[in-house]
C-alpha cells in the first residue's frame, strides 16, 4: 500500500508541478484571473450593492446561490451527524456520580436511583471525572457573553469589515461549545435544547432560501434582492444591501445551531448525556 501511495503521489505531484510552468507568476497584477471577471466586482460593488466589503457582496449577492448551498452543506452535515450517531438508550453501567454542592463531597451511587436527587443539593458529574475548577468555570462564564456579543457584531458588521454569517455563526456556536467544555454538556443543553438546535439550523437555511423565494414571488429572479425593494420601501441598491444582511442572519443562525449539534453528538457518542 505504501509503495502504491508513493507512486500515485509522485505521479500526481509531477503532473501538477509541471503544469505550473504555464501559470502566471504569483501575485502578477496582469494575470487572467485579475483581469477577466473580478474587476467588475471590485469596481461596481459599491455602486450596485452599496457594500464596501467586496467579499461579502460577491458571497451573498453576485454568487449568493453558491452560498445558499454552502449553508445547506453545513445543515446537511448536522443532520448527517444526528442521523448517524444519535441514540436514545441510556449509557450502560448503573453507577452515577454526584457532588454535594455545600460541602464539595463526591458521592458515587452504585445503584442508579429512579429519581434524581434534588439538583440544588446534589450536582451530577460526568463519569470521566474532572476536578471542579472554580477558576475555569467562572472565567468562562464571564467570557461567554462577550464572545456572543462579538459573534453578533461579526454577523452584523460583515458589510464593512471582514466577517459575516459564517464567521459570526461559528463564534456563537463556539461560545456554547465553550460552555459545554468548561461546565458540562447538561448545562449547555439546558441553555440550548436539542430540538432548538435542530429547528434553528433548518430555520436558518430557510431564511436564506425564503428571502430568495420571496424575491421570486415578487417577480424577480430567485435571490434577486432588488425585487424586494417595494416591500422594504427602499431603492433597489439599498434593498440589495438589506437582502445581504437578512441572508447573513440566516447563515449565522444555521451555522451556530449546526456546530452545537455536531459537537454534542460527537462529544457524547450520540447520547447527549455527558460530554468531554
Amino acid at each position, binding site marked *: 500500500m505504501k509503495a502504491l501511495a508513493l507512486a500515485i503521489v509522485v505521479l500526481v505531484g509531477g503532473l501538477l508541478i509541471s503544469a505550473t510552468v504555464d501559470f502566471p507568476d504569483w501575485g502578477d497584477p496582469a494575470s487572467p484571473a485579475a483581469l477577466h471577471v473580478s474587476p467588475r466586482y471590485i469596481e461596481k460593488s459599491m455602486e450596485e450593492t452599496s457594500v464596501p466589503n467586496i467579499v461579502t457582496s460577491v458571497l451573498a449577492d453576485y454568487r449568493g446561490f453558491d452560498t445558499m448551498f*454552502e449553508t445547506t452543506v453545513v445543515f446537511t452535515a448536522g443532520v448527517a451527524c444526528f*442521523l448517524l450517531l444519535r441514540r436514545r438508550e441510556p449509557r450502560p453501567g448503573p453507577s452515577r456520580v454526584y457532588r454535594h454542592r455545600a460541602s464539595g463531597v463526591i458521592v458515587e451511587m452504585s445503584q442508579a436511583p429512579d429519581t434524581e436527587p434534588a439538583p440544588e443539593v446534589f450536582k451530577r458529574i460526568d463519569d470521566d471525572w474532572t476536578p471542579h475548577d472554580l477558576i475555569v468555570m467562572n472565567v468562562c462564564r464571564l467570557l461567554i457573553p462577550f464572545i456572543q456579543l462579538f459573534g453578533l457584531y461579526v454577523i452584523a458588521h460583515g458589510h464593512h469589515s471582514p466577517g459575516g454569517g459564517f464567521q459570526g455563526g461559528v463564534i456563537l456556536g463556539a461560545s456554547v461549545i465553550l460552555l459545554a467544555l468548561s461546565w458540562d454538556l447538561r448545562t449547555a443543553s439546558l441553555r440550548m435544547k436539542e430540538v432548538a438546535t435542530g429547528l434553528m439550523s433548518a430555520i436558518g437555511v430557510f431564511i436564506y432560501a425564503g428571502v430568495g423565494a420571496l424575491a421570486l414571488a415578487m417577480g424577480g429572479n430567485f435571490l434577486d434582492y432588488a425585487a424586494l425593494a417595494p416591500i422594504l420601501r427602499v431603492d433597489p441598491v439599498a434593498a440589495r444591501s438589506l437582502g445581504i444582511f437578512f441572508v447573513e442572519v440566516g447563515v449565522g443562525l444555521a451555522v451556530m445551531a449546526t456546530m452545537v449539534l455536531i459537537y454534542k453528538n460527537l462529544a457524547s457518542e450520540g447520547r447527549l448525556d455527558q460530554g468531554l
Partner: protein
Amino acid sequence: MSEQYPALVVIGPLLCALLVSVAGWLRPRLCLPLALLGLGIAASSSTGLLAQVLTHGPVTYRLGGWAPPWGIVYHVDNLNAVVAALVSWVALTNLVASYRAVMTDYPEKIGPFYTLYVLSVTGMLGMVVTGDAFNLYVLLEITSLTGYALIGLGGGRAPLASLNYLFLGTIGASFYLLGVGYLYIVTGSLNMADLAKLLTPLHGSLALLAAFAITLVGLWMKMAFFPLHAWLPNAYGFAPSPAASLLAPLMTKVMVYVMIRVMISVFTVEFILSEVALSHFVVWLAVAAMVAGGLLALGQRDLKRMLAYIVVAEVGYMVGGAWLGNKLAMTGAILHIINDAVMTFCVFLAAGCIYQKTRGTAFEDLQGLFKKMPWTMTALAAGALAMIGVPPFCGFFSKWYLIRGGLEAGHWGFVGALLFSSLVNVVLFFRIFEIAFFEPMSHGHGGHDGHGEQGGPVALAEAPLSMLLPLMAAALGLIALGLATGPLVEKIILPIIPAGLG
C-alpha cells in the same frame, strides 16, 4: 411561472427538505407528505422544463439577476432537461417504494432520513441544471455528504464502507475543485460557456491538459470508473436498500452526465479530438472496466454486491461511448444514461423488495423466490433482460448504438468487451434465476436447520403493494423506453450532439 422552472427544479425540493427537517422534530407524520411534495414539485417542473426546452430551445436562467459570467446561471438544453426529468422521476418513484422499509427499519429517524433523501436529490438536480463550474462543486458536495450519511446508516460493515467512500469521494471532489482552479488561473472565469470561449486559444498548453486530466480523474473517482471503483461495491452493497436504490441508479449516471457536460461544453469537442492518445487510453480503460466489472461480479455470492459490480461495468459502457469520438457512440452513451438509470433502479428496487421479505440478499436467501414472490421476480427478470440487452427492453437499443459507434470507430476491443459483458450478464442473471426457480426452499445449509418443513408448498409472501407498484412501473418503463427509443434519439439526443464529432 414557466420562466421560473429552472429555479423551481432546485428550490422546490430544497425548501421542502427544510420543512421535512422541521416536521421531523415536531410532527414526524408529516415528513413523508412533505418529501413527496418536494419531489413532486421537482418532477413536475423538470417535466415542464423539458417540454419548454423541446419547443423553445435552450433556457438560460440568471440567479440573483446577474448576467454571466459575473453571476451564476442555469443553462438548460435537451441534455440537462432530460437528465433532470429522469432523476426527479426515479427519485420520486423510489420515495414511494421505500417508505415501508424506512418505517420498519428507522422508525425514530424518519425526519433526518427524508431530509437527507430530498437534499440528495436536490444536489443531483442542481448539478444537472447548473451552468457554473464552481456551483457544480458545491452541489456535488451536498449529494456526496448525504450519500455518506445514508450509506453509513446501514448496519454491519456499512460505516466502514461509507468512510472509505468518503475518503475517495473527497479526493475526487477535491481533484475536481483543483481542476476548476487550474482553469480559473489560466482564464479567470467560472462560467462554463465563458470558459469554452476563453479556452479555445489555449489548446495545447500544458496547464489546460493538466486541468483536464485532474478534472476527469476527480469525476471518474465519483462515478467509480474502473481503476478507481474500489469504494462502490461495498458502499452500495452494504447500504440500506432505500438508499441503495436511490444512489446506485442516479449517482453514477449524474456523474457520467457531468463528465459529458465538461467534455462538450467546457473543453469542447475540438480539444478532445485533438488529444488522440488520451481518448485512446480512456477507451481502453473503459474496456478494462467492462471486462473487470463482469469478472468480479461472477465471483460474488450476494445479489446486491453482484449488482454493484454490474454498475461498475455499465459505467465502462458510457465512458467508452462518450470517448469513442463519433456521433453514434455519443448518442449511445447519452441514451444509455437514461436507460441504465431505469434498469439499475429496477433491479436494485427488486433487491430491496427481496430484502424486505427475506432480510438478506445472499444467494442462499433467494431459493424458491419465484414461488414466494412471483411479481418481484418478474420485475427482476425484466431488469435482467434489459441489462443483457434483449430487444423489446431498452438496454438493447443503447447497446446497439454503442456497438455501431464502436464499429464505426473501428475499435474492436470496445465492441468485443461490450459483447463479452452482455454475455457475462446472461450468466450472472441466469444463475440467479436458477437458484430462485429450481432449488427447493430449504436445503439444510450448514447451520440453517429448522428452516421450515422440508419440500412443503411455499406460501406466497409478496412484498407490500407500496413497493410492488413502483417496481412494476419501473419494469414497464423499461419496455416503454425501449419502444420510445426512436423519438428519444431523434427529438432529444441528436440535436445536442456537437457537430464537431465525426
